[in-house]
């Protein structure tokens, strides 16, 4: 006889909600997440202190966006164009390398009341700079795409760790049980693929759900039963026999996660297609996001759907700009940045504008980052490209408790090393958590005998940028 490991009441509490609740409350009643007891891993939770933001839209531009050509102007670099400097490493090789300084070919302008400098690559974004806090002098631990991408997402370039979105889902749960807490809108996989949104040792319900823009953003989202009632009957029966199984086997994370996954999937069937359907947006909105233009329609869709999902309560949204190929990795020619900037400039500006006019920006934290910056110098004086540079790059944040119209941190006269308020990946993550009401040192998970954090043993909240 199997010893009773927990009371029957306890078990029913663990496994109830969802279809169990449906079965009890009447078969055809709307599934309602709010009936879930607080033990549910995705049930909305309070943070450690009052939050400034409810959700995050994390925009990731893949490949390494050059900071000195976008948000970190370097007049001295322009002045010293063609002069040489000595680098102690080059393309992963140690040694002494004479390299030529290369100026940016993109003129910078000041925007808004704040006068924030932005290059001509991002004129539309320039127009909303009073809502944006530029963070110059970021640095990260790796200049390899895969590792730096993992670092930007999980805090660790080296070990498999949960993604920031998973941590936030774990820390706060999510208000809408019919949509995943963490969704990734990506036309193509980034470097390191699905690892970038993996939950690793955190419960699997916190992993990112990949949405692929196209006619069917989520595969198998359409029910195949003749009616919703019939599907509910099936799922209620499924839940019942799974619960019977749990009563026999005892508590089991894997089995409970499977039960949970059906409940989320059921909700997704109605919520997701509606969220993805932009047909009822006004002409003006579609234009604002650049849906009507070929160059911007792709990322415009991602931004607009992100707003729609944010409205529906999704806790963490990630938008991946391009993917592991054809991206910002402009080794050959920086002119390629023009094509890439054009595709996202209008959509991102629209997202900020749209969130603001709907009163959502205040509680939505928009974060833009890339894995690393690009070198201010190259092997030939007339080389049109730039190499990877992880010692300095730019990220920015907007909304959700961040001071707009400011620039935090600075790099040296050529944009090679941070000189003031240098910020590490962990600092960015700590700040994101802070704005969501989470103390990055207290958001821990016990795994393999140790309490793990998104920020490992480091990370400082960037206090000067808090509104």
């Amino acid at each position, binding site marked *: 006889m199997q010893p009773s490991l927990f009371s029957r009441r306890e078990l029913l509490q663990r496994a109830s909600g969802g279809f169990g609740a449906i079965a009890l409350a009447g078969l055809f009643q709307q599934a309602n997440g709010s009936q879930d007891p607080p033990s549910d891993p995705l049930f909305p939770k309070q943070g450690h202190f009052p939050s400034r933001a409810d959700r995050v839209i994390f925009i990731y531009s893949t490949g390494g966006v050059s900071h000195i050509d976008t948000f970190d102007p370097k007049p001295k670099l322009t002045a010293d164009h063609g002069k040489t400097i000595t680098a102690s490493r080059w393309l992963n090789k140690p040694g002494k390398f004479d390299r030529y300084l290369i100026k940016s070919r993109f003129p910078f302008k000041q925007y808004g009341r704040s006068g924030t400098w932005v290059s001509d690559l991002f004129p539309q974004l320039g127009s909303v700079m009073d809502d944006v806090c530029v963070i110059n002098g970021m640095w990260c631990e790796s200049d390899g795409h895969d590792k730096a991408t993992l670092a930007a997402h999980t805090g660790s370039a080296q070990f498999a760790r949960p993604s920031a979105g998973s941590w936030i889902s774990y820390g706060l749960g999510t208000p809408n049980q019919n949509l995943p807490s963490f969704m990734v809108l990506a036309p193509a996989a980034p470097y390191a693929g699905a690892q970038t949104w993996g939950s690793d040792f955190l419960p699997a319900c916190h992993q990112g759900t990949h949405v692929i823009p196209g006619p069917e953003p989520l595969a198998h989202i359409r029910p195949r039963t003749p009616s919703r009632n019939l599907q509910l009957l099936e799922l209620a029966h499924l839940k*019942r026999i799974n619960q019977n199984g749990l009563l026999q086997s005892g508590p089991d994370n894997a089995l409970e996660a499977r039960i949970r996954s059906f409940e989320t999937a059921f909700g997704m069937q109605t919520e997701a297609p509606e969220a993805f359907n932009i047909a009822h947006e006004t002409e003006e909105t579609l234009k604002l996001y650049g849906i009507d233009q070929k160059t911007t329609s792709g990322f415009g869709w991602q931004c607009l759907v992100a707003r729609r999902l944010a409205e529906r309560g999704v806790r963490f949204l990630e938008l991946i700009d391009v993917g592991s190929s054809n991206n910002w990795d402009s080794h050959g020619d920086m002119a390629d940045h023009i094509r890439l900037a054009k595709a996202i400039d209008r959509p991102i500006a629209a997202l900020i504008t749209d969130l603001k006019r709907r009163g959502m920006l205040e509680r939505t934290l928009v974060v833009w980052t890339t894995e690393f910056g690009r070198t201010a110098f190259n092997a030939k004086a007339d080389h049109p490209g730039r190499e990877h540079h992880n010692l300095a790059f730019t990220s920015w944040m907007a909304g959700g408790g961040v001071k707009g119209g400011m620039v935090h941190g600075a790099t040296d006269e050529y944009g090679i090393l941070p000189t003031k308020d240098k910020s590490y990946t962990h600092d960015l993550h700590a700040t994101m958590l802070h704005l969501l009401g989470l103390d990055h040192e207290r958001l821990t998970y016990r795994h393999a005998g140790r309490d793990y954090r998104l920020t490992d043993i480091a990370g400082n909240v960037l206090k000067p940028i808090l509104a």
Partner: protein
Amino acid sequence: MQPILLFFVASCLGITPALDDDVFFESKIRPVLVEKCQKCHGSQKQQGGLRLDTRSGLVKGGDTGPAIIPGKTGEGLLLGALAYHGDLKMPPSGKLALETIKDIELWIAKGAFWPTEKNPTPGGRTQVIMPSDRAHWAFQQLKRPVPPKVKNSALLQNEMDRFLQSTLERSNLIPVDKANKSTLIRRASFDLIGLPPTPEEILAFEADSSPNAFSHLVDRLLASPRYGERWGRHWLDVARYADTAGDGADYPLPEAWKYRNWVIRSFNSDMPYNQFVREQIAGDILANENRGNKGPTHPTTLSDQIIATGFLAIGKRYGYAPNTDYQYLDFADVIESTGRSLLGLSLGCARCHDHKYEPIGTEDYYALYGIFQSSQWSFPGGEEHKKPDRLVPVVTTGEIHRLAAQKAENVAALKTRLREILLQKAHLSGDPIVGGPDLGFEKQKPKSPIGSPWLALGPNILSPQAQSPFNHIHPQGKQGVRMSAGAANDGVRYVFADPVMASPGKKIHFSIDFHVPGKSVSPGAFRLYVGRGVIASTALDISISSQSIMVKNGTQWDLVGPLNPDTWHSLNIRIDPDSKTYDGLITTFDTPKLPSTSIPFSGKKLAPGWDGVIDTFICDGIGHVPGSVPVHDLDNIALGEVPFAKPGTTTLLPLATTPDKGKMAQLDMLQKEATSRLNAEVARPLHDVAYGVAEGQPTNAKIQKRGEPDKLGSEVPRRFLQILGGDFLDPKSRGSGRMELAHWITRKENPLFARVMVNRIWQGHFGRGIVPTPSDFGLRGDPPTDPNLLDWLAFQFVESGYSIKSMHRLIMASAAYQRSSNGKEANLAFDPNNHLLWRFSKHSLDAESVRDMMLALGGNLDLTIPKGHPFPPEPWGFTIHAPFYALYESNHRSVFLMSQRNRRHPYLALFDAADPNISTAERIPTTTPTQALYLMNSPFVHDQAKGFAKSLLAKNQDDVTRIQQAHLFTRGTGPSPAEITESLEFLQSYETALKINGTPSPQVRSMAWTALARVLFTSNAALHVD
């Protein structure tokens, strides 16, 4: 100019900082230790028995335990003390800056580099293996441990259990009871064949009360062909198998399936693991060796041995064309994959520098590199070379010759047949051009210079006077070409539509009639050229003056006969490409009745350097003597692969003038048929090929500094890893070294070989290896939970003759394998993750098992063994921007699904199947709502459920029996009475709801049962194994 000195991040290992290890240590670590620690823990004082002024001091630790475990930041006391986490807070003067602590942690993570104690050597010098590395457990020879004594021997089922039982006893844990029989048969079936047992099998097993019931079951499952499909798949994960190349354009690999099926066959036949590995590394060489005296102990074929080398070639490929530009990346894949899969060692880091953590040097890497570089690799097709190349014949060279000769014979016979038909047609139609290679003379406009398809320069005219009287090759026509003196380069040229190519055993025939009218006194000679292109590659030359007929013998002119004035000559030549010679026969037409004189010649050498192709005939004025050429007539030119009739042996009748339409249509049909048979035979590949490797040009590699192929260092002789013996190739060795490598890896003295594989087998059964990092037995890997158990198993493996099936029998006979998966409070508290195997770990079915189970229950599983995939026919034009992508539906077992590298198979990716871009040691299962959507809404699940419901309803049973069967099929156990009631209630309410929805009543019942089938298919009980 203003120089600036910069420090950059060394990120090859992805670890900050960017500084070299010694710089990092000296700038970040040593100062902290000196300043903050060594006053109390140094050479003067050792408080708590701890010294922090040597690496060994840190590792040894103090009274309370080691301060650090290099490489393991989660262990050791130092970090906790620095972080002020527990009671121990160091340094007492105040917490160090976070950045400093992070530096120390990174330093530990990187292996706690300490310059005086261990210096990694730069590439180019002989690498030194530190005694501490050499002492690593995995590099020690296998021990033969004695199974330990246990207190409670009643819990043992075999000797293996002693190891586990003694560990449990040390922890005061009592394992759970044995699983019931229905659980056991379901567990064993999914484990060995990846399919559920049928209700009949379950009931029969439950009824079998003999003590051998379970071992009989295991034997039955191991004898099933389905076994190889399950365990072969485990190997294919490790072997990074995929059906496409994986570069940007992701070209299909039409031959890959042969390796896949070979793996499956090898598991089914229980090929000894050492032979299995040897063939994958050097099967092609072994195949040639086997033809001598000693063959392998386990039956194999030459073809299989060559196919086995697919293991090396099947990895992700980087090149766009079969050149060497990107091959260093292909070799990086094969070195890393071979190391991880066969040795449990990660060798890839040594590409750029001596391995930071493992005793693997750059020289080790490039020693192996040389071996792989000395082999020839099949090329998969790529953006710049859009088809596969260098595929390896799976037959011997002798066999290739035999097959080529056979094929040449077939082609010749088919051509003869076609020629007969064409001659009949020509005869019927009166149109000689239809009838054969008369080179279009009869179609030309009379009394004009010759036109297309001929090319001509200088004086020539079509004339009835130039019509040859010979009629043994072409029927009598009306005109030939008459050529007069012009410039030496003047002449006529004809390009044959069907070039003739030399192949072993083939003879080539050429014939021409010529005539010099009157008694010419012109001094020059005209030349007849036969070869490829416009003198691009000469086969032979003939030169004719008004006096003599000369032929080229190699590079000199030989006289073969006089030219009879005003007489037609027919010259017939037979070329033998094998001996590079030709023979000939000159026949003159002396009287209107019969050819009278014949002059044979033989053994003339073909032109040196002829490339074996004939597609052009030229007649010009560049003969063996200079000067203006005599007027000459040409006619009846013929080229073919079958002998022509000899003059006088046959007479082709003059052509008919009114063709018989019916007969002509029949001949047209015959011609079409003969042509397609000929084309098919010409297109038929001579022999089968494999995507694998063959021997190439033996050569040592040079070290590529920092992994860059254009920065070459010193040459490294080919040899084995130093830590595993470092054997060099025999100086007399003339091969690539793969043969030797196969031996080095599989020899008994290599302690990793058996250990790594038994650990994989163990992992296959229990879900977790004794070494939890199955492809990493090095210093960075996790140590074995029980090294003695691992060695004992490895010994059993070696003694069984590397029989994998013996290991299954051994492991599955144990009490540990047969335990239930039930929880137990005391044990859960102590060992929640079941590392000590006090119960069987319940686990979810993998992607293949879920799909195969549903196909089987749905009645749609096709158990035949498929070959390749329906890839689009060549030519291919895939590029990075338009890569190959296809998804092929199939009812075969999932191991046979076409798996791409660049775009994962959506189902396999969704359910956590191995990513084929790397050697996968273990799959990490996930549970996601998108999987649930698949289970709820995919056509596949709905189709299979429908099939399952249909088969349940087809039987003449009552519903309760059907419900019992349905549960037995899907989860291996029957339902409880309550579950029967719930199922009946479900069916009833579903039927009611269907009726309310207006479903036509004949469909109601089957739809309700289909719904029940879906629920059972997707239930936890079905998707997990207890």
